[in-house]
């Protein structure tokens, strides 16, 4: 079996999702039996345009990013959005709540108009090109990534959870964050993270984006039970993929 040629590309992000690949530790050695990294700037000096799978990390925030991503799409047979910044725009979308000129001026003062500081409202990868698969999360769940890559290497369709975080949270027998008077995005956020945040005493801030068809009525019931409204829930949707609609 010929190995799947994989290339990593990063845009505006913290590169923490690429870091998760290192965090596979010994499992990397197994994955290397199935795939051949041909470009991975964070780890390798080699560069190569001949790849089957392009893994896109980070958000699109400039015209030149958009051109680069489109060129990658043309080269790639399969394109994967890797991590929240690529799947939904992630934390970078907080910027979209402000005027771009104000944002630039705030950080760079009188240098704000220098050409290299150009920026436009943040986009996820799928707002620019067709995305074939999404590895959700901030950071990604490395087990899920490994699973998706293994599926692609053997030509199987990966199954990504399409139920809310509450399902996984309940299975972990956590006390509901609403019981603590908090607002948690668990009822509408896509599972697959193993409910890591609520299991560590923190409400879910929705880094994996919403499930495909959020059960708004059920969410409404949960909110009512704790004397809260859907607008309260919406108010918490700022941190990641700012103000996604549902």
């Amino acid at each position, binding site marked *: 079996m010929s190995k799947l040629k994989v290339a990593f590309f990063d845009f505006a992000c913290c*590169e*923490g999702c690429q870091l998760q690949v290192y965090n596979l530790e010994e499992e990397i*050695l197994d994955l290397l039996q199935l795939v051949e990294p041909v470009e991975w700037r964070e780890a390798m000096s080699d560069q190569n345009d001949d790849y089957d799978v392009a893994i896109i990390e980070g958000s699109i925030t400039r015209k030149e990013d958009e051109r680069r991503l489109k060129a990658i799409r043309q080269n790639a047979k399969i394109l994967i959005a890797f991590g929240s910044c690529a799947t939904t725009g992630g934390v970078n979308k*907080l910027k979209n709540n402000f005027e771009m000129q104000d944002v*630039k001026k705030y950080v760079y003062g009188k*240098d704000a108009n220098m050409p290299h500081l150009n920026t436009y409202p943040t986009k996820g990868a799928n707002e620019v090109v067709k995305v074939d698969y999404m590895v959700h999360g901030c950071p990604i769940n490395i087990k899920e990534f490994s699973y998706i890559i293994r599926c692609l290497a053997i030509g199987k369709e990966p199954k990504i959870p399409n139920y809310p975080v509450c399902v996984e949270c309940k299975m972990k027998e956590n006390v509901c964050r609403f019981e603590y008077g908090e607002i948690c995005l668990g009822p509408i956020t896509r599972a697959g993270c193993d409910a*890591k945040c609520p299991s*560590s*005493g923190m409400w879910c801030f929705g880094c994996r984006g919403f499930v495909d068809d959020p059960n708004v009525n059920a969410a409404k019931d949960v909110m009512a039970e704790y004397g809260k409204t859907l607008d309260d829930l919406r108010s918490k949707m700022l941190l990641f993929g700012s103000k996604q609609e549902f």
Partner: protein
Amino acid sequence: MIKKVDISVDHVTRVEGHGNIRLRASDGKVEHVEWQVPEAPRFFEAMVRGRSFEDIQTIVSRICGICSVTHSLASIKGVEDAMGIKVSGQTDKLRILCHYGEQMESHSLHVGYLVAPDLLGQNSVIPLVESHPDVIKTVIRLHRLGNTWMEIIGGRMTHPITLKPGGFTAIPSEQQLRELKKSIEDAVPDLKILADVILSLADKLPTFDRETEYIALKYPDYYTFYHGDIGSTDTDEQVPVQQFERVVNEYVSPQSTAKWCKWHRDSYAVGALARFNLNAEQLLPMAAETAKKFGLKKGACNPYLNNVAQVIECVQVAEHSLQLIDELLTKGLKPEPVKVEPKAGEGVGCVEAPRGILFHRYAFDEKGLCTKANICIPTGQNHANIQKDFEAFAPQIIDRDQDEIRLLLEMLVRAYDPCISCSTHFLNVKFV
């Protein structure tokens, strides 16, 4: 014939983020050498405005995947300074412990996966899997230890969950701490192997001394990554972190698009070597022994030795963690629910990232909403020093083969363990 050297490296590899190297020389004379950071900034300081003090950590942790605990801690300390919040001894120790996990993870990744290929003549760690399996397995074990360590205390390997202003959302069990202690004790032989491997390759580190100013936290009680005032090798004066702007003096250089920093000279350096140069006498016995093995002494000014200082620090954080865990277990862990009442104020948080000193400044209104933020990251503070190193080193090596020059300059950048995503987004090398 006039020998021309024309080097242009776009996106230096095996570093976090993007940067460029430009070098042009003719007939043995360097005409132009430049360290460039073509920034695609992410505007975190602007984005946190209007957000609650409780959410700042969740946001700014995402500045950097590889120092997310450090950014989390700096922001939390900033919030606590602004609101006059005091934390318990238990919280203090657990935070330092979590931070040490990140130092171990980051240093072992940098030395083992990113620098070792240069010393072994390879383009990446991947060929080393076959050629040096024992070395790679040692690095993998240490790297995993750092990760598990952060996960036990922070709730996740990258982007910690539990670290919040005032304390923790959840604390580990005593059993987990005992297990962590055991894993750290078990890692001592691996730390020795790592040190011996780097020691055996130390002659591959280029010889290049250039005196500069080194800046790091200083604290009387121990070799610090978390508490203390700002110290420098150029002065005995120590500056409270609240006045960090007096030290960093950011300025725009016509030579570079990135902001540069200077205090007593044109540039200064931060990171493992800076901490060593300021605090080496506080190293614990095993770490001090490791330093002795390498013959590393205070006053070292070869930037490539930053990699050696990182190895020494891996031993230091392991050793200090064993003490901290003993202290925590002796006292017994107890849940300390956090309730913070917001109030208006301004404050600074400072900690040592694996790659150097980091400052966060925030202001909040009476509801605890952020009104102002300023973040000064270690890689930004090193940019000017990298440029000054280039200017001094390039003429010394200009007679060598172009590929060798390129490699030496790339290795120099890599030695600083730059995390350009933090400061910006792009790193490339162009020989123009």
